[in-house]
């Protein structure tokens, strides 16, 4: 059985953090052990004064992960982390995830170093060195990171203005991280405001560029859904390569990345279909934000999209998003 330990936020209403990751992974056959870094009524996009609940303190998180580690040190085939509210909780997560990874060297650790987006930090600055410590750790325990471009620039300590610079950044980070997936690049990087570009890089290979049409709306939780799906597909990727089921790693990696983005695209289309006509959510307007929550439940049948089903599943929109034009 596939079992993942996922440490990120929990919201009672809506789909971000563990709420966005858990159900899709469960549909894909994963036992998901959710360790909640916060419990909020809804996500903070509703307006900070409209969110009720609490963050899990460093001490409480330490206690919780200690219990999990003592009872189930060898139960996991993968580890996932997302939003953690502060320095202490990032450090605590790191402390136990390192222990788990050392106990289970063949497991897959996917880390979304959630710090901010589009030039804005949404954690305190003192969180940055904690993520750097985990990512640049000489023990090389983290397998995959999923920063957005802003977070990548923070980790790399430099602005990235061209694709060549992006490749140089990858080379630098590949010293300790085998797989880097930049979930959304700035539109200036490819001079194209109409598409979202995702670039995925495996150490020693040319990066894979994927391009999906931009859907005009404000959705939250997409990044959390992304890292969850990526975890599933990269776990399968590793398995197929190790077991010798596939001997074309490059094609398989492209295929898996394509699957992740196709699932997301279909979830967004379903979400849009359910939303009131032409509604664009406005951050801070709770009643409107509410209608733009990802339709995670209604998307039950799209999580297992495979590229080879492209012609068979007419109910879905399956495209090749690989971008070769550079």
């Amino acid at each position, binding site marked *: 059985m596939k079992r993942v330990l996922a440490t990120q936020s929990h919201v*009672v209403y809506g789909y971000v953090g563990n709420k966005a990751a858990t159900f899709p992974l469960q549909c894909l056959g994963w036992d998901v*052990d959710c360790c909640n870094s916060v419990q909020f009524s809804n996500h903070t996009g509703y307006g900070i004064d409209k969110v*009720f609940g609490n963050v899990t303190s460093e001490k409480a998180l330490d206690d*919780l992960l200690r219990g*999990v580690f003592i009872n*189930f040190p060898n139960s996991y085939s993968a580890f996932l982390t997302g939003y953690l509210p502060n320095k202490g909780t990032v450090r605590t997560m790191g402390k136990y995830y390192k222990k788990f990874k050392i106990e289970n060297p063949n497991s897959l650790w996917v880390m979304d170093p959630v710090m901010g987006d589009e030039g804005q930090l949404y954690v305190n600055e003192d969180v940055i060195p904690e993520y750097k410590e985990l990512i640049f750790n000489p023990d090389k325990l983290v397998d995959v990171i999923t920063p957005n471009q802003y977070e990548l620039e923070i980790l790399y300590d430099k602005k990235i203005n061209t694709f060549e610079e992006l490749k140089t950044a990858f080379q630098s980070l590949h010293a300790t991280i085998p797989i880097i997936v930049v979930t959304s690049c700035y539109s200036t990087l490819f001079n194209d405001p109409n598409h979202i570009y995702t670039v995925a890089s495996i150490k020693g290979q040319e990066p894979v560029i994927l391009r999906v049409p931009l859907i005009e709306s404000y959705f939250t939780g997409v990044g959390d859904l992304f890292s969850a799906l990526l975890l599933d597909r990269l776990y399968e990727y590793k398995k197929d390569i190790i077991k010798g089921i596939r001997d074309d790693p490059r094609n398989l990696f492209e295929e898996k990345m394509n699957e992740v983005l196709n699932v997301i695209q279909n979830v967004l289309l379903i979400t849009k*279909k359910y939303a*009131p006509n032409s509604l664009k959510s406005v951050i801070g307007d*709770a009643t409107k934000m509410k209608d733009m929550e990802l339709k995670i439940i209604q998307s039950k049948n799209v999580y297992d999209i495979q590229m080879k089903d492209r012609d068979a599943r007419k109910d879905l929109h399956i495209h090749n998003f690989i971008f070769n034009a550079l």
Partner: protein
Amino acid sequence: MTGNNNNQEISERTKRVLSIQSHVVHGYVGNKAATFPLQYQGWEVDALNTVQFSNHPGYQFFTGYSSSPNELVDIISKGLIDESELSYDAILTGYISDVEGLRKIGDLISQLCKDSKKIKWLLDPVLGDNGKLYVSEENIKIYQEILRTASIYVVTPNQFEMEVLTNVKITDLPSLRVAFEVFREHYPTIQNVVVTSVELPEHPDVLTSACSTFNNADKNKLYIDIFEVPIIPAKFSGSGDLFSAILLNNLFSYKPVPKNEGELLKSALHRTLIQEDAILKRTYELTLKEFNHTQTIDNLSIVKDLKLIQSKDLLVDESLYSNVSFKCSSI
């Protein structure tokens, strides 16, 4: 629910439940047992966690903490109801061990159900099992108070909880009937009662489940439907939480729609018992396979983790048990 849905492809609004129970990182009890089955059956589940533990206490060691009662109440009343203007089809409440938390949440949910008659409250009065109380004596009084005053759609005590709430020891079918009579007398605002897994000495090979609808036209008659489910030689942590979740779904979605409340309750309970039995059997078989490598079968009297993910087909595909039915009678 605000927002007009103009899209014709979407015929039915997704049902939404607020589920207030415990959370464990590892395993399937409380909200972890209820959420996935309900989601997989098409529900939006707003899971409010009363505690966060590493695993359930059935393991020898666990860590974790409880959320404060005020925090839980604020999340519901300020976050969900006031700010987001949410409306629920159902509210599911399970394990709430904290005395003050139980009182506050009980008051709040009672008021919500009073304000909006369309919310259906399924209350699992979690007190203990097999003759053992696992909350404080004070919790019993609070549950009794809630049951006396609130309008609750369905209450799902196990045998021990039914005994505690009615002060009637259940040893045979006549005493089971007495327990239902006392329950109806003490708690007249409750609409439906389902007593799960009663063990009767005269029927050692089966677990008995019983249900009754109290808001029948005929106040003088009490009809109780009884089902007999062949016993599986193990106890399963989380089975009660799974039961209340799938019962909730069956009460909302049983097709064809039965002609009255009593028929609905009886049909929904029967379907729930069949689904639960199928999931427990699969859990047992899969656990047995794991155990064969390491331990003897004697150790399998308590199964700690339901195999819910591996049972997802059983939640939605009725053809998998279309030939199963359990013996039914009335008293």
